């Protein structure tokens, strides 16, 4: 696939493809940056990335938002044609994901080492920090990869972790980090605290587009995101080691090095989160930054998070769907695709062949029992193999005509759900629902499903021809 060494190379391709909008008029940090990124999400599924280069109060600051925030941008990040439909992007992602492990390669030097600040680190001078939503407690780095190692197993690359966690800037060199017990970095912190040590971390901001997707993918504890990036790219992923032995992406704009402080928890939040609600406040761990390295005139990359859909929904789209598909299809090879695009998979649509009556319901149950499904899948819709689960018009057709609610809707009480789901009662527990929208087959014969319409002869041929002609029209 087409790969990108760094964010700048990807932005150049987005621009060439008409998917990067440059704003050179002066803008305010608040509310302009958050408002513009929010508006891009409201303008449809083909919105460009946006780069601001004239920010009030800064001389040379540059901010990009919405880099992954549309299907064309997501396709280009995966090295595909910009017009690739979501279903093709899903299969492309799955093809790479199932090639794990790929390779990664350590190199010595990277452009982000050009400027190093070690004395009196002041993030407010180094980064154009801003509030996204009015109720946010402050400024957050929300699209950066935090890297840590297991202090009990420091030489094991497979348990090095790369994850995107929201980081609240709390002082010139102080960050808060949202790390709940389920997160890999929380395991590393627990091991460090048991040893009575701080946990070294490196934070990479403004990276190539693939590693951002990897940081957003729920992987197993012993799967390394860089090996997954290598698998997706089909060539070794390049990293550079810090003095503390933490590997960071070669193509980063900024690298922050510091320590998660053992035994410290501090007020954090709220932050407008992906379910479309504010997170509330908690006492979360704290990071002290000792050194900041960055490229000359660095580009600050952030993701607007708001009521769906926003850029974060693209970051959590195929990265959520692929792991569920891999687990379910291992048991049920009849499953052809999984759409877990909605609010990180609170709703999942799965398409499958059915072998006998009741089969689709078993597939739905298996989705609920995947690792991600345990905390997210709340409504599972199962459709036939000839329904594209990524095309909601087709899904709604299937629900319209294939569902008889007294036979096809199953409600399962008292199951686990992510505490961020506001519907939990109590928080963290919810009923779940499976909607079987497949055609009933023997021995579950019911309804009158005699003659389903197909398409006229040569429709596929015409579709290919017309798609090409329509593209030429542009």
């Amino acid at each position, binding site marked *: 696939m087409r790969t990108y060494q760094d964010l700048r190379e990807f932005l150049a391709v987005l621009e060439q493809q008409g998917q990067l909008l440059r704003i050179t008029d002066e803008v305010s940090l608040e509310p302009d940056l958050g408002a513009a990124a929010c508006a891009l999400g409201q303008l449809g599924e083909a919105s460009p990335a946006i780069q601001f280069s004239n920010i009030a109060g*800064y001389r040379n600051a540059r901010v990009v938002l919405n880099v992954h925030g549309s299907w064309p941008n997501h396709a280009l990040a995966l090295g595909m044609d910009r017009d690739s439909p979501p279903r093709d992007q899903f299969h492309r992602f799955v093809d790479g994901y199932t090639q794990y492990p790929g390779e990664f390669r350590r190199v010595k030097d990277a452009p982000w080492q050009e400027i190093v600040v070690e004395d009196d680190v002041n993030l407010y001078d180094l980064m154009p920090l801003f509030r996204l939503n009015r*109720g946010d407690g402050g400024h957050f780095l929300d699209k950066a990869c935090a890297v840590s190692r297991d202090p009990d197993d420091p030489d094991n690359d497979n348990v090095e972790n790369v994850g995107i966690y929201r980081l609240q*800037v709390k002082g010139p060199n102080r960050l808060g980090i949202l790390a709940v*017990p389920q997160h890999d970095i929380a395991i590393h912190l627990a091991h460090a605290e048991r*040893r009575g040590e701080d946990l070294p971390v490196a934070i990479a901001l403004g990276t190539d587009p693939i590693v951002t997707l990897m940081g957003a993918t729920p992987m197993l504890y012993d799967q390394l995101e860089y090996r997954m990036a290598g698998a997706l790219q089909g060539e070794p992923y390049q990293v550079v080691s810090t003095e503390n032995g933490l590997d960071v992406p070669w193509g980063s704009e900024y690298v922050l090095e510091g320590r998660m402080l053992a035994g410290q*928890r501090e007020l954090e939040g709220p932050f407008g989160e992906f379910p479309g609600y504010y997170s509330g406040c908690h006492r979360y761990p704290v990071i002290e930054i000792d050194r900041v390295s960055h490229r000359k005139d660095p580009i600050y990359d952030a993701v607007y998070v708001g009521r769906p859909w926003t850029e974060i929904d693209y970051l959590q789209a195929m990265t959520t769907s692929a792991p569920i598909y891999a687990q379910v299809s291992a048991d049920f090879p009849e499953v052809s695709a999984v759409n877990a695009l909605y609010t990180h998979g609170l709703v999942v649509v799965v398409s499958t062949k059915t072998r006998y009556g009741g089969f689709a319901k078993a597939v739905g149950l298996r989705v609920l029992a995947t690792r991600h499904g345990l905390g997210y899948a709340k409504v599972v819709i199962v459709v036939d193999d000839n329904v594209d689960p990524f095309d909601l018009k087709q899904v709604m057709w299937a629900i319209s005509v294939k569902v008889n609610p007294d036979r096809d809707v199953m409600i399962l009480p008292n199951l686990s759900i992510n505490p961020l789901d506001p519907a939990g009662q109590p928080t963290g527990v919810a009923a779940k629902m499976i909607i079987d929208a497949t055609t009933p087959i023997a021995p579950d014969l019911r309804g009158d499903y005699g003659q389903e319409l197909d398409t006229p002869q040569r429709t596929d041929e015409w579709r290919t021809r017309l798609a090409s002609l329509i593209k030429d029209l542009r």
Partner: protein
Amino acid sequence: MSDPDLDLTARMCPRCGATTIDTRATSPVAGVWILFACSTCLYVWRSTEPEENRDPDRYPTAFRLVPQDLADLPILPAIQPPRGQADGG
């Protein structure tokens, strides 16, 4: 700092009402904005933000915090005691 509006916003934290506030940062281009911070609830606000984010009277009720409640906020993840302590040795 001669703008009277800026002096007003700097008197009290818009979110928790504490007076433990200081100037956190000033714009690299001088005189464009000041960033204030509250050391009680860690809220920050910029002198150029919409009023509801910097004026204590207009700060949205839903987002206000009470300083006395902050010590009771849930801790995540639980702090692990160092091995020696946990093992009683």
